[in-house]
């Protein structure tokens, strides 16, 4: 299992701020997790469609599609940041 976190507009679009999911089989990466999530329904498919602007952090460090995942990881998805 990994913990998923969603922030800001992604949280609102997906209607979820935090959940636990089983990792997809094989050598899981952010990419395989995102493909898995896109298969849930049209809304998830749309939010993570190619060309959509989102960022991902694994265990609170900026990550990318190729970042490997292991059980217990915290994976956060969010839009480009706008602080300051």
């Amino acid at each position, binding site marked *: 299992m990994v913990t998923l976190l969603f922030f*800001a507009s992604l949280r609102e679009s997906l209607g979820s701020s935090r959940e636990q999911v089983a990792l997809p089989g094989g050598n899981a990466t952010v990419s395989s997790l995102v493909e898995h999530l896109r298969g849930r329904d049209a809304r998830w498919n749309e939010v993570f469609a190619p060309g959509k602007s989102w960022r991902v*952090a694994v265990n*609170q460090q900026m990550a990318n599609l190729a970042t490997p995942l292991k059980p217990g990881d915290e994976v*956060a998805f*969010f*839009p480009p940041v706008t*602080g*300051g």
Partner: protein
Amino acid sequence: MATVRVQAADFDAGAELEALTRGRADVGAVASFVGLVRDANDGQPIRGMTLEHYPGMTEQALQEICAEAGGRWKILDAVVIHRVGPLVPGERIVLVGVSSAHRGEAFAACEFIMDYLKTRAPFWKREDTPGGPRWVEARSSDDTAAGRWDEDPAGAAKR
């Protein structure tokens, strides 16, 4: 180790900058930046905004940005305070303060920390406009501002 705080409450910029120099005589310069909530953005009046963040990662990201600044310039200390939650126009959002022996390092490191904060620290603004709330879109000019430190770090340090 820089002082990093993420808080809902306002801050006293003068007291925070004073703390950078208290009890030490090796500081020759303190540079600072204070960011405020404007009453308009992208042609829309702004009644207020709410700042969301990623607790834990935010503080870590700010510490890393300060450490990165410390690797590039000879700075003596730094403070970053960023507010979260609801804010109205005129309120302070963020303070960056940097102390060093000479002004060049303090100016450069302060601007660098702010540019990196804008593109790397996990904060998000939601503005309240007459048409309803809207999430602020990231600006490509912020990426450009952060990117110039990579293209020509030596030149940036000499500015």
